[in-house]
């Protein structure tokens, strides 16, 4: 970059940042379930994107930033899994996040989904992406997206059918 980014590029980047920054934090939050982690993750992606802004078209920047957030969330979740595996006796830090709403139980169910299914659900029902776009973001086939979405919805539907939703919640507690 060499400090040589044009003023016009700075303007377009700032426009992207102001419009897309909060979207990326929220996407990261839905994927990792912690506001602080989500904010750090989005900040890293935004900085990285700024470093490559001259190569990115503004129209497609969000798609790339979204992919980067998903990829980085994998790293974070892997780290958490390792931490849980090697320090089971240590108290896990309490997740810092917004207070649960009335729909918290359904959100709990989404959080309890396997990583891939959760990503598909978030990208499909929050980002409103098509199956093809989700496949592109996750670097998997459309068939994988379809089957992941199907399994996730089946699991959620079963829990919703159960009035208390206790089956999946108890599964999460066991984990």
């Amino acid at each position, binding site marked *: 970059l060499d400090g040589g980014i044009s003023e016009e590029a700075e303007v377009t*980047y700032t426009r992207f940042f102001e419009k897309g920054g909060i979207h990326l934090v929220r996407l990261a939050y839905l994927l990792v379930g912690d506001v602080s982690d989500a904010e750090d993750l989005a900040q890293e*992606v935004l900085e990285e994107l*700024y470093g490559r802004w001259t190569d990115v078209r503004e129209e497609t920047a969000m798609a*790339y930033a979204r992919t980067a957030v998903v990829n980085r969330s994998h790293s974070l979740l892997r780290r958490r899994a390792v931490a849980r595996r090697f320090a089971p006796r240590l108290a896990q830090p309490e997740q810092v996040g917004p207070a649960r709403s009335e729909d918290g139980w359904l*959100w709990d169910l989404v959080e309890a989904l396997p990583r891939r299914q959760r990503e598909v659900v978030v990208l499909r029902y929050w980002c409103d992406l098509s199956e093809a776009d989700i496949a592109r973001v996750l670097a998997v086939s459309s068939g994988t997206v379809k089957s992941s979405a199907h399994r996730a919805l089946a699991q959620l539907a079963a829990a919703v059918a159960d009035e208390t939703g206790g089956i999946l919640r108890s599964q999460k507690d066991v984990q």
Partner: protein
Amino acid sequence: MNDLEQHLSNVLARVSEQVDPAILRLRNPAQFPRQKHPRLGTAAAAAIGIAVAAAVAIAFAAPRLNERQHAASAPTSAPGPAPTADPVSAFASANTSSLVAAAPPSSASLSASTTMSTSASLSAAGPSSRGRASAAPEVEAALRTYVACMRSHGFPGETHPNYPPRAVMAAEDGSVPSPGLADRWRSASQTCAQPYWKAVDENLYSSQ
């Protein structure tokens, strides 16, 4: 969209809106000061590093200074700095080069270690990398491996696992039709990026 999907969509929207923009501390990289480190916190870390290095240098120098003072006040003292009762002025008049030499392991390395990995990675990145996220040497090396691997798959030039080269982007957004190019890049990138993501796992989050 059936009822469950609609409900799910609403819940996700409500949950995401609980992330309040007012409490976020997102910083626009385009507004970082020029020729400064990309993260504001790094400047503070560098200042702390310098202060700690100076404090350690003084701490190591003090005993030597006392020895000199003691020797100077002895009746059979050898030629040396003039004895003085005031330790501050004594310190000021002491041989600066010996103080620097007497500051083990070295103020520079101490500074580097106390300012954490951010300053080291930033100095590696250099001042010209304004706006780029700092990266550990292992991550930089893994990125070079990725670039070499992608070259062997027929994608030369600078590239990154998160950001395809311009031609691939053009193929993806349809501005330049290149059938299969984006898929080939994605496939190659997925293969080549494994060491990079491993390095990111091992370095990036461990430094936070």
